[in-house]
């Protein structure tokens, strides 16, 4: 036991000695939350739109007014014809164009059909769809007011957004970031610190000492568990104070789950370190191999529900996916263990599995 404590002390000193790395480890999660809380958003605003109006009159002026005063649109220009639109689309100076027919006012008065064309830059299908929806809505509101009373049938949807009423982006990305930063940092740190000993040759010295290999690994990860915990707490404080991200559920549960997840990520790091020869390979495996899947297969940015089934299946081996459900559940929905026990069990299972694989592969001898 004393030998083990001494070993933990050595690892802690290693970590504390390198001030630069320590600063990075502690500061960056917070910086990330700040940047992304402010900058990563999915709402669409300020759409650059052009209106093609060959014969301006009162009715089209009203429409123009509506578009210009809307927060969602930025009316770039009103032109008489469609020539030149294509070039502007290609340049990206406009992203939508509303092409009105001639004599709108007269057509409305006489009850003629009103052919309106709405062109949208659909290269990004998601944003394209949202833009089209906004423009259609504004056009229909204008139309409803412009035609005489009566109007067509309407089903009015009253929508309520549960758990994130204003669709605040920070609410979404903060839980995701906690999962993301924890995964990569913990896995990367463990993988590197173990392979480093291999590469510099000090692993051999450790292995000939009376400490057991499992104790060596345990000693290596303990300082990082503490560090990961500090990171979680800092991120939570930043999320709370700066963005007012709610914590509906129990703080204790959230911390306990974070602790569990740190273990999962560390175990992942151990597994990586047993399979690669040097730090370079460890880094590529931990970063290039983990970054994109954690970003894309966890539900962090893209919804998982719509994935084809092989990917749904694949995403269930990504630990971040389960942790993300837990963090969102506790923070936004106030869920307790009663609803989250499945996810928790899965994480526990994954951790045990990874630890088992890692310790079995752990080289007692180097070659």
């Amino acid at each position: 036991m004393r030998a083990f404590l001494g070993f933990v002390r050595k690892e802690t000193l290693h970590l504390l000695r390198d001030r630069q790395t320590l600063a990075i480890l502690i500061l960056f999660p917070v910086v990330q939350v700040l940047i992304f809380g402010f900058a990563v958003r999915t709402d669409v605003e300020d759409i650059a739109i052009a209106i093609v109006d060959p014969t301006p009159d009162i009715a089209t002026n009203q429409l123009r007014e509506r578009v210009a005063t809307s927060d969602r649109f930025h009316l770039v220009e009103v032109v008489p014809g469609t020539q030149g639109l294509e070039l502007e689309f290609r340049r990206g100076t406009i992203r939508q164009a509303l092409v009105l027919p001639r004599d709108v006012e007269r057509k409305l008065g006489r009850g003629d059909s009103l052919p309106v064309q709405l062109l949208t830059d659909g290269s990004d299908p998601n944003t394209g769809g949202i833009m089209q929806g906004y423009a259609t809505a504004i056009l229909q509101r204008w139309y409803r007011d412009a035609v005489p009373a009566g109007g067509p049938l309407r089903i009015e949807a009253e929508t309520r957004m549960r758990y994130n009423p204003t669709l605040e982006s920070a609410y979404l990305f903060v839980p995701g970031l906690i999962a993301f930063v924890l995964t990569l940092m913990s896995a990367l740190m463990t993988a590197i610190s173990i392979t480093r000993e291999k590469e510099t040759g000090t692993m051999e010295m450790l292995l000939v000492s009376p400490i057991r290999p499992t104790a060596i690994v345990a000693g290596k990860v303990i300082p990082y568990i503490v560090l990961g915990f500090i990171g979680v707490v800092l991120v939570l404080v930043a999320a709370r104070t700066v963005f007012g991200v709610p914590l509906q559920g129990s703080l204790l549960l959230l911390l306990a789950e974070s602790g569990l997840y740190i273990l999962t990520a560390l175990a992942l790091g151990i597994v990586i370190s047993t399979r690669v020869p040097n730090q370079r390979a460890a880094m590529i495996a931990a970063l290039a191999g983990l970054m994109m899947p954690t970003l894309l297969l966890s539900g962090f940015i893209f919804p998982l529900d719509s994935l084809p089934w092989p990917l749904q299946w694949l995403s269930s081996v990504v630990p971040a996916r389960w942790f993300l459900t837990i963090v969102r559940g506790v923070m936004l929905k106030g869920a307790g263990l009663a609803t989250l026990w499945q996810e928790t069990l899965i994480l526990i299972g994954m951790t045990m599995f990874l630890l088992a694989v890692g310790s079995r592969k752990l080289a007692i001898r180097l070659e």
Partner: protein
Amino acid sequence: MRTTFFLVRKEFLQIFRDRTTVFQIFMIPVIQLLILANAATFDVKRVRMLVVDEDRTTVSTGLVERLEGGRQFRVVRYEPSDVGVDYALLDRQVTAVLHIPRRFEEDLVRRGRAPVQLVLNSEEGATAGIVQSYATAILDSYARELDRTLPAVRAGSNTVRRVAPLDLRTRRWYNPTRNYKHWMVPALMVSLTTIIGLLLTAQNIVREDELGTLEQLNVTPMTKLQFIAGKLIPFWLIALVIFSLGLLIGRLVFGIPMRGSLLLVYLAAAVYLIVVLGLGLWISTVTRTQQQAMFVAFFMILIFLLMSGLFTPVESMPKWAQLVAEANPVKHFVGIMRAVLVRGAGIETVGRPIVGLAVAGIGVLALAVVRYRKSVA
């Protein structure tokens, strides 16, 4: 020149000797592109829906049928009342709840309008917004349909009206089939090439420093510029190969459009890679251990990627963040790739960002050359 060539050769030997790394460098991007291109989509399908239908009339059943008819919604549960609905949302059994109140049909027939309530789980905000727009679109089209089929009943309560019908034709340019892959694959290629390139270069010099071989290089008559060039060229070539693999997969597997000039794409890639790899080398000269270099590279990649418009549109970011994003090389390259491949833009559109990248590349390389010291502190 010869000196640089030898260094380039040495780097190649060192990389290709290490089988694990070679495998990782080329396979990770390929595999990830193949898999992740399918995952990066906001296209919401089969949203699990719970329906509380208190009206139970032909019109309300028709509404549920229309919702189920599309591929966006799947009604998994019917409830007679609101009891238990909250728990279904909390437990993620359903994502959306549609509540049709009593007298829905009657209201529609009598007043021409009737409310329904839609409750969405918005813990994944972007999704909730999209689900909402799908639902509204379906409701609208159902209302239009009823407008034609219900008038027999309405005629009595309504005077004869002659309203100009709004004939709205919407067209989406550049991606009419709404294929999200066409939008994401060019960008994913960029991100995978960037991650590998930045990691490899960031780790390279500091590794020689850690192992002690840097001193051996330092005592050779090689100049600083030759040294940096010798370190840059091998990774530049490797990254271009990865990039080409990506393009090939994009074309053959995902059928992404290539409307613009491929030459322009390669010009942009060549310039862009100098910026990224130069940044990596600069990181490698300012850090002291591989671990440090990795963390700096990691956080740089993360910020670059998430603020590049790759996943979430740059236009949605606040003004200050858009300004900051101007300094992000990934943002420009992603923009160039999408503009040229998807929209078929030419040099007149992407010329400026390419020149910008070139300037940045020269700056970054100069920085790396200056920061690299041949003497030991």
